[in-house]
C-alpha cells in the first residue's frame, strides 16, 4: 500500500467551503427526490446522499485540465467540479439549458469545459475511456490526469479488469476512485465480491498502488487525492483509491430497500459526512442556519431556472448524432 508522505492539509477556510459544497449537494439531491416524487422529473434517478465527501474531496483536489468520468450516481461529482446547479437541475428537467442540453439526463451528465467527459449508465462502461484519456495525456506529455469514479459493483465487470491491467501496463495518467458503499444495487458486497471489504486487493492483482480512504472524512479524501494526483501527474503511473463510503438512501429514488435491514440503514445514517465535518469545524447553530439558508436559496433558484427552461423541439432529437 502506498504511503501518503506529504500531508497537504486544507485550511479551515477550504474545509468550510467543502462543508458548503457538501451541504449544497445534499440539499440539491433532497430537492431532486422531492421533485421526482411530485412527478416533475422524467426518467429515473439515483442520489448519492451519504457520499458527498467523496465527490467534494476528489473533485476539490483536481486541477483545471483534469478530466473525469462518473457513474449513474453523478449529481455530486458534477456539482463538486463546478457545474452550476442551474445547469444540472435543468438537465434533470430535460431542458436545453441543461449541462447535456436535454440529451443526457441524470445518468448522462456532461460538462466538457469543466472536465466532465460523461456520467455513464453502464456500470463500468466509462472506465476504458478514462484509461484512454490518461494515455493521451501521457503521449502528449501533458500534466493532466483522468479520473474514473465507479462503485464496488463495477469491480466485477470485464471493463474494470481490462482497464486496470492496461492502465498499469502502460502507466497512463489515470486515477481510479472506487466508491465502495458496499451495495451493488440491492446486492450486498459479501454476495457480489470475495474482496468486498478490501477492494485494494483488486488493484494489487494488477500491481497498482492502492490507498485506503475513509470516504466520510472529506479532509482525508482531499489530501489523499491531492497527493495521488501529484504523483500521477509526475508520471509515476496510475493509483487506485479504495474509498469506503455509505449510501444512506436507496439505489434509486423510491427504492423501498426491502433487501436492507434497519440496522444497516441506521449504521449508514450515523456515518453522515456532513455531520462529521460540522462537528469537526464546530460550526455554531447560527452559522449552520445561515449556510443552510444560503444553499437552500441556490437550490430553489435552480428549480425555478429549470422549470422556466426551454423544452427542446421534438425534432431536436435528430441533432448531435454525428459531428
Amino acid at each position: 500500500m502506498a504511503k501518503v508522505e506529504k500531508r497537504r492539509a486544507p485550511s479551515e477556510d477550504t474545509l468550510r467551503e467543502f462543508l458548503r459544497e457538501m451541504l449544497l449537494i445534499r440539499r440539491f439531491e433532497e430537492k431532486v427526490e422531492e421533485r421526482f416524487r411530485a412527478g416533475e422529473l422524467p426518467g429515473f434517478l439515483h442520489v448519492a446522499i451519504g457520499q458527498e465527501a467523496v465527490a467534494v474531496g476528489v473533485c476539490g483536489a483536481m486541477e483545471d485540465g483534469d478530466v473525469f468520468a462518473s457513474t449513474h450516481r453523478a449529481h455530486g461529482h458534477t456539482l463538486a467540479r463546478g457545474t452550476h446547479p442551474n445547469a444540472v437541475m435543468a438537465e434533470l428537467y430535460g431542458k436545453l439549458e441543461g449541462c447535456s442540453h436535454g440529451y443526457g439526463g441524470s445518468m448522462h451528465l456532461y460538462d466538457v469545459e469543466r472536465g466532465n467527459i460523461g456520467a455513464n449508465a453502464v456500470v463500468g462502461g466509462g472506465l476504458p475511456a478514462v484509461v484512454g484519456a490518461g494515455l493521451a495525456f501521457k503521449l502528449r506529455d501533458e500534466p493532466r490526469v483522468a479520473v474514473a469514479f465507479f462503485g464496488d459493483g463495477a469491480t466485477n465487470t470485464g471493463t474494470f479488469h481490462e482497464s486496470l491491467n492496461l492502465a498499469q501496463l502502460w502507466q497512463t495518467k489515470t486515477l481510479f476512485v472506487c466508491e465502495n458503499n458496499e451495495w451493488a444495487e440491492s446486492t450486498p458486497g459479501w454476495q457480489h465480491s470475495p474482496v468486498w471489504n478490501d477492494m485494494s486487493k483488486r488493484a494489487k492483482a494488477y500491481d497498482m498502488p492502492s490507498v485506503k480512504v475513509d470516504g466520510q472524512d472529506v479532509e482525508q479524501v482531499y489530501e489523499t487525492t491531492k497527493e495521488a494526483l501529484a504523483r500521477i501527474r509526475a508520471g509515476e503511473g496510475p493509483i487506485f483509491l479504495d474509498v469506503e463510503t455509505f449510501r444512506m438512501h436507496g439505489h434509486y429514488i423510491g427504492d423501498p430497500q426491502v433487501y436492507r435491514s434497519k440496522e444497516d440503514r441506521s449504521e449508514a445514517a450515523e456515518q453522515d459526512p456532513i455531520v462529521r465535518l460540522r462537528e469537526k469545524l464546530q460550526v455554531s447553530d447560527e452559522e449552520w442556519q445561515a449556510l443552510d439558508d444560503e444553499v437552500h436559496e441556490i437550490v430553489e433558484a435552480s428549480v425555478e431556472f429549470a422549470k422556466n427552461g426551454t423544452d427542446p423541439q421534438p425534432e431536436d432529437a435528430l441533432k448531435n448524432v454525428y459531428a
Partner: protein
Amino acid sequence: MPELSYREAVRDALASAMRADKDVFLMGEDIAEMGGSMGVTQGLYEEFGVERVRNTPISEMAIVGAGIGAAMQGMRPVVEIMYEDFLTLSLEQIVNQAAKHRFMSGGQLKVPLTIRTQGGAGWSPGAQHAQQLEAWLVHIPGLKVVFASSPADARGLLWSSIYDDNPVIFFEHRLLYPIKEEVPEQLEPIPLGKARVVREGTDVTVIATGPLVHRSLAAADKAAEEGISVEVVDPRTLQPLDEQGLVDSVKKTNRAVVAHEAVTRMGFGAEVTAVLQEQAFDWLDAPIERVGAKFAPLAFSPSMEQFVVPQPDDVLAAVRRTVGRGK
C-alpha cells in the same frame, strides 16, 4: 501510377496519416513487431516506434474504450480488432459509448476513432473467425461504417475515416488483401457516403460489397456472354449510405440484385432492398433479388463452407431471375 495490394493500400493510408499527424496512433493485438495477424501493419512499428504502434493485451473492450478516451481528448487513434468475430467482445464500448458520447453530451464531445477489423470466408477459418457482421453496426445511429473492396478505395476511404470526427468501423476482407491494382501516386481521400459504379451496364444493377463486388464482376462477365448487361455498384460506405447513387442506377436498369457475403437474413442487403422499393418502386420491372450466405454458422470443411457462402454463380442465377430467364 504505383501498384498496391489491398494490404499495402491500408498500410499506406495508416503510414501517411501517421507521418502527417502525431495525433494518429495505432493500438491492437500483435500489430507491432509481428505486423498484425494479417500483416497489414508490417513495418509501422519500425518507422513509428513503440509509443505509436502499441501492442495491446487481449482486451477488446479496453482496446476500443481506450481509443474512445484518447479520441475524446482530440487524438485520432486507429485501433485494430483482429477478427470481426471479436468485435462482439467490444460491442458495449462501440454501441453504448463510442456511438453515443457526442449525442448524450448534447454535442459537446467528438469521438474521432477508427476501428479497423477484418473477416471473411474462403479459407476454412471455421465459425468464429469469418463472420460478416457489418449490418449490426449499420443499425447503430452515431457510427459510420465502411467496407472497401479495392486497394484504391481502401486507401482513400481509410484516410477519410481517420480524419472523420465520428467513430468509423472500417471493414476489410481477408481474401482481398493480396488483390492488386494501380493507385494514384498521391493518396487521394475518398469521401464517405459516395458509391462507386464499378462496371457500367444497362439491364440489371448488382449492388455488392466487399468480395461480392469481385464475384459480381465475374458473374457480369458470364452474363454478358448471354447478352445480359450488368451494372455493378459498390456502396463502399454502408453508413452514411449513398441512397441516390444506388437509386439512380436502378432507375436506369430497372432491375436490382443485392449481394454480400454476410448471412442474407437481416443482412445489409435487406436495408438496400427496402430503400430501393421506397424510392424506385415505379421503375422496377422485377422483384429485387438478394444474394448472401445461407442461414448457418460457417462450417469448417471446404465443401460445406463453399456451399454456404455466395459464389459468382449465385449472383449470376439472381441476375438471370431478374431478367426472366428462370433458374
